[in-house]
């Protein structure tokens, strides 16, 4: 009897079951994700302590503003207006009323708490998925109170990474050449600032001309060119200790020193006999090695992130174009074939793209192409702009642009700009003086 029932059941089973319908979703929107950044709550005692130490009225709100500003400038998030928030910061941090946040169309919510414990700043923050009504991340940081801006940047990086799957780039600094005075008597100083333009500081006094500062990708050391008795010298400068050393005193012209990805070597070009070739210098034993040997002008070398390849520009085809070769100088391949001249190639830290400056019909473009030369995309166009430098996650480029300051075409101003890979999110980075030759650091904390 049981066997019969089982048999019947097995026969009837397929009739009941419908095949599961599958729908492929292959498109979505690239709109910035709406996110609510609630002011970080702060108790009265802590607020007064921080007011005394940092001279800031409400450090909780200010940190949340840093986070909000970072997320907005990334172009991937749309921080919602705080006026629409219904829940008080302290209660939201304990248990958000997700319906309220849903109502203002927030998909993610950031809450937190700031306190003053044992002379230290302690910041706790939580990231909530509003639609799923659950906590996605909770972290707490303690540091010296003066580091409060960095805490804001670190929170931004954590949120960015949790929501996009990619590392952030907010807890970083930018080194650049600060310029003042008329074009014929320009004073150039090395300057450093946070990536959002705050904490600007000058590192040199402007006695000597400084050029092309570049960050070591693995530390807070920079290399740059400076002129001493009209001779270019390559310097190393440790930003954290202020220690400076000369790595090379080269007769003739040296251009564009840049670190290898592991920070052990410097790659640059030297000019000799009317031609220019690419050399590397080992920073430990100071051995100089010649990489290219061609009667053309080879300049602007930049390593791939794995250190196996080098991209550079050369006029060996008659016009300045971008080439890629192995790190020993073999297997040289031209990768740029578009109209115009190509220069300043920089390999993305992600390894997939090479950024460049292109000059065509009197206009300058900042663009990217794949490392095999395919998929060229021009991101921004202007009358004079160059020297792109990648954010550590390979999503944003910073460069400088020169413009005339009035409608008659008089005056002259150089400023730093950033653009992301979409080509839409272009922003001016405020600097107290004119600025050129920016270089982006790696993340200050991992």
């Amino acid at each position, binding site marked *: 009897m049981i066997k019969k029932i089982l048999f019947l059941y097995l026969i009837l089973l397929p009739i009941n079951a419908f095949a599961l319908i599958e729908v*492929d979703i292959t498109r979505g929107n690239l709109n910035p994700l709406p996110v609510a950044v609630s002011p970080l709550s702060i108790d009265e005692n802590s607020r007064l302590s921080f007011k005394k130490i940092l001279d800031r009225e409400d450090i909780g709100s200010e940190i949340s503003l840093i986070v909000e500003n970072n997320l907005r400038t990334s172009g991937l998030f749309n921080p919602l207006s705080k006026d629409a928030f219904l829940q008080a910061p302290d209660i939201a941090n304990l248990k958000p009323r997700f319906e309220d946040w849903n109502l203002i169309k927030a998909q993610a919510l950031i809450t937190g708490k700031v306190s003053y414990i044992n002379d230290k700043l302690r910041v706790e923050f939580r990231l909530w998925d509003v639609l799923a009504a659950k*906590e996605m991340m909770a972290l707490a940081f303690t540091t010296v109170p003066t*580091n409060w801006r960095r805490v804001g940047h670190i929170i931004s990086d954590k949120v960015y990474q949790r929501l996009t799957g990619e590392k952030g780039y907010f807890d970083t600094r930018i080194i650049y050449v600060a310029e003042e005075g008329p074009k014929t008597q320009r004073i150039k100083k090395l300057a450093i600032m946070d990536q959002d333009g705050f904490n600007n500081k000058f590192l040199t006094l402007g006695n000597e001309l400084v050029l092309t500062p570049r960050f070591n990708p693995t530390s807070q050391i920079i290399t740059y060119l400076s002129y001493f008795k009209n001779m270019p010298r390559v310097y190393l400068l440790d930003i954290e200790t202020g220690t400076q050393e000369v790595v090379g005193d080269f007769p003739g012209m*040296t251009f564009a020193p840049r670190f290898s990805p592991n920070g052990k070597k410097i790659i640059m070009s030297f000019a000799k006999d009317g031609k220019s070739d690419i050399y590397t210098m080992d920073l430990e034993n100071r*051995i100089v090695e010649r990489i290219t040997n061609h009667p053309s002008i080879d300049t602007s070398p930049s390593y791939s992130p794995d250190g196996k390849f080098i991209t550079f520009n050369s006029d060996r085809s008659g016009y300045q174009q971008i080439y890629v070769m192995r790190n020993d100088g073999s297997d040289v391949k031209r990768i740029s074939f578009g109209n115009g001249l190509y220069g300043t190639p920089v390999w993305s830290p992600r390894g997939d793209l090479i950024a460049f400056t292109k000059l065509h019909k009197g206009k300058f473009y900042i663009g990217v192409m794949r490392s095999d030369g395919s998929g060229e995309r021009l991101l921004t166009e202007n009358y004079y702009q160059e020297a792109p430098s990648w954010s550590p996650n390979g999503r944003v480029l910073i460069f400088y642009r020169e413009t005339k*300051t009035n409608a008659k075409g008089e005056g002259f101003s150089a400023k730093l700009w950033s653009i992301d890979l979409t080509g839409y999110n*272009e922003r001016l980075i405020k600097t107290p003086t004119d600025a050129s030759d920016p270089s982006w650091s790696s993340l*200050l904390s991992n």
Partner: protein
Amino acid sequence: MHGLLIFITAMSLPFLAKKPLDIPPVVSVELIQIAEKTNIPFAPKAKKIIEKVKDKEKKLVSEQAPPKKVEKTKTKTVLSPDTNNKKIENETPEAIPLPEKTVKKIETKEEKKQNPEKVDEKVKQVSEFEKKDLFDPNNIAALIDKSKEESAEVLKKNKDITQDQNKNIENTGLTLSEEDALKAQIFGCWSIPLGLPYNENLLVRIKLKLKPDGSVTKTEILDHARMNKPGQGFYKVLAESALRAVKLCQPLRVPTSGYERWKELQLNFDAREMLEG
């Protein structure tokens, strides 16, 4: 005695059978200490450590010869970015370094040609041209929504044609127009995380249980185990974005009839096409 046993069993069993309380997963708070200085190791040292680990069997070449120290000099011109840095304050500034003999000389001649960082100055032109159309979120939306509008137009046209066909189609799947309506709706709700790699196999399959009005009663990620595996961070981000899309789109635009057909649906979220774009 037996009665008592039965009584106890009857009383306690339902409690055992009861589902555990639905407590949301607790995310532990990770404490991070931020030093006054950055904690990035000095590169050559870090590199050595990595090499040590990697090439255990190989001889450690880099360890044999300690790096030749070139005389370091502090200069007046360098100001510390960190005003709290006592180290720097205590040190007396010295003169600007002179060319050291330890520095290896390379014979190169003066050269007049081309500066690598500057493209021909003659061609330099200037204008007050400033890009006015800076980033505008709505702008992106407009660009991306074009495809949506286009598909919507096609969809409209298709509807007229397919309505008659509906009767003939077997009740096993959605008609083209029904599928397009649903797709178009979810395309609008799904914010694709832009940082994902496009060359990895990232496909999120979600099984839905639906009510006749299109509201979702249950969502289930079919490869749920992959979510919390180490190194699957991208998958997790994508899966969460897909779940958000489903929640945001409720009620789904489901056909008005044939509930039995679509009361369970599987959505396959695949962002590769968009990310590669």
